[in-house]
C-alpha cells in the first residue's frame, strides 16, 4: 500500500541487521581500548568516521605504529566501495537541499545501501529517500551505542582473551562471502601472498603493492574467462 509510512518501512527492514551490527560495534569498542586507544578517541572515531571495517583498520594501524598518511590511505581504500553505493543509489535519494544531501551521504553504509537498493528493486511505490533515512538512523544509533558499551567494557577484560585477534578475524569474516566467486578468491589470495612476501618493504608500501596485485590478478582472471 502506498499509504504506509516509508520511514517506518525502512526501520523495520533493518531490524534483523542490527542484531549483527551491535556485536560488531562492541568488538570495535573493545579492541580499540585494548589496543591502547583512549576512550574519547575510540568514541569520537565512531562519530567522525562511522564505518566499521575502516575504524578497525585504524585500530590495527595504531597498534602497528605506521604513519598517519598510510593509516588514512588504508581506511580510505576500505571505504572506496561506498563511492559505488553512492553512484548506484544517488538518483533515488537525491534532494534539492545541500544540507539534506550532506546528511544522507554521511549515513551511507553497507547495510543501508543493501536494504534500500533491494526495496527499490521490488517496490516501485516506496519513497526510497524516506526508506533510506528510516533505515540509516537506527544503524547510526546502534553503532554509537555499541561502541560506547564496548569502550567501557574493554579495559575490564583479561589479556589472555587475546581480543586484539578479533581485528583480523573481523576482516576475515567480511572477506568470506567474496571467496565463493573464483575471481574474488584469486584477487584475495594474490593480495595475501604478496603481503606476506613484502612484509619487510619499508613505509608499509607492501600493503599497497599487495592490494594492487590483488586487484590486477582478479581483474585479469575475470576478463580472461569473460563470464559472469
Amino acid at each position, binding site marked *: 500500500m502506498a499509504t504506509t509510512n516509508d520511514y517506518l518501512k525502512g526501520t523495520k527492514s533493518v531490524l534483523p541487521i542490527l542484531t*549483527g551490527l551491535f556485536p*560488531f560495534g562492541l568488538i570495535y569498542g573493545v579492541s580499540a581500548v585494548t589496543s591502547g*586507544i*583512549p576512550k574519547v*578517541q575510540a568514541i569520537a572515531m565512531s562519530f*567522525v*568516521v562511522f564505518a566499521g571495517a*575502516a575504524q578497525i583498520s*585504524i585500530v*590495527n594501524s*595504531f597498534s602497528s*605504529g605506521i604513519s*598517519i598518511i598510510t*593509516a*588514512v590511505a*588504508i581506511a*580510505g*581504500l*576500505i571505504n572506496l*566501495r*561506498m*563511492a*559505488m553505493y*553512492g*553512484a548506484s543509489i*544517488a*538518483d533515488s535519494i537525491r534532494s534539492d537541499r545541500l544540507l539534506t*544531501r550532506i546528511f*544522507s*551521504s554521511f549515513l551511507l553504509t553497507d547495510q543501508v545501501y543493501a536494504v534500500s537498493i533491494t526495496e527499490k528493486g521490488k517496490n516501485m511505490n516506496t519513497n526510497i529517500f524516506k526508506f533510506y533515512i528510516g533505515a540509516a538512523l537506527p544503524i547510526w544509533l546502534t553503532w554509537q551505542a555499541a561502541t560506547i558499551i564496548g569502550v567501557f567494557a574493554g579495559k575490564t577484560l583479561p589479556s*589472555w*582473551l587475546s581480543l586484539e*585477534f*578479533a*581485528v*583480523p*578475524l*573481523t*576482516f*576475515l*569474516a*567480511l572477506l*568470506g562471502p*567474496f*571467496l565463493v566467486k573464483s575471481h574474488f578468491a584469486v*584477487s*584475495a589470495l594474490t*593480495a*595475501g*601472498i*604478496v*603481503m*606476506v*612476501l613484502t*612484509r619487510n618493504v619499508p613505509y608499509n608500501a607492501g600493503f599497497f603493492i*599487495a592490494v594492487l596485485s*590483488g*586487484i590486477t590478478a*582478479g*581483474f585479469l582472471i575475470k576478463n580472461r574467462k569473460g563470464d559472469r
Partner: protein
Amino acid sequence: MNTSHLWAVIILSGIATFIIRFFFIQIKQAPLSGKVKELFSFIPPAVLSALVFGSVFENGLSSLTPRNPYLWASILAGITAVTSKNVLLTISTGMIFIWGWNYLY
C-alpha cells in the same frame, strides 16, 4: 603513532570517508563506467585479505610455522567464513581456538 597522531588520522579519515560518500550523491549524473565499477569491486577482497595476511604473518614468511596459533585459527575461521557467511560465528570460531591454545600452552 601517538594519540595526537591518532586525532589526525581520525579527522583525515573522517573527511576522506565523507568525500567518498558524498561525491556521487552530489554530482548530477553517475559517470562510473562498467570497467571502473568492475575494478572497484576487487578493492574490498584485496584490501581485507592483505590486512588478514599482514596480521597472521606478522614476521613475513618466518611466521609460516605450525607454532603460529594465528595461522591455525585463521584457517579454521576462514573455512567458517566461507561456509556460514556469518560474521559472529567466524569471529567466535577463531577466538575459541585461540583461547584453547592459550590455555594449553
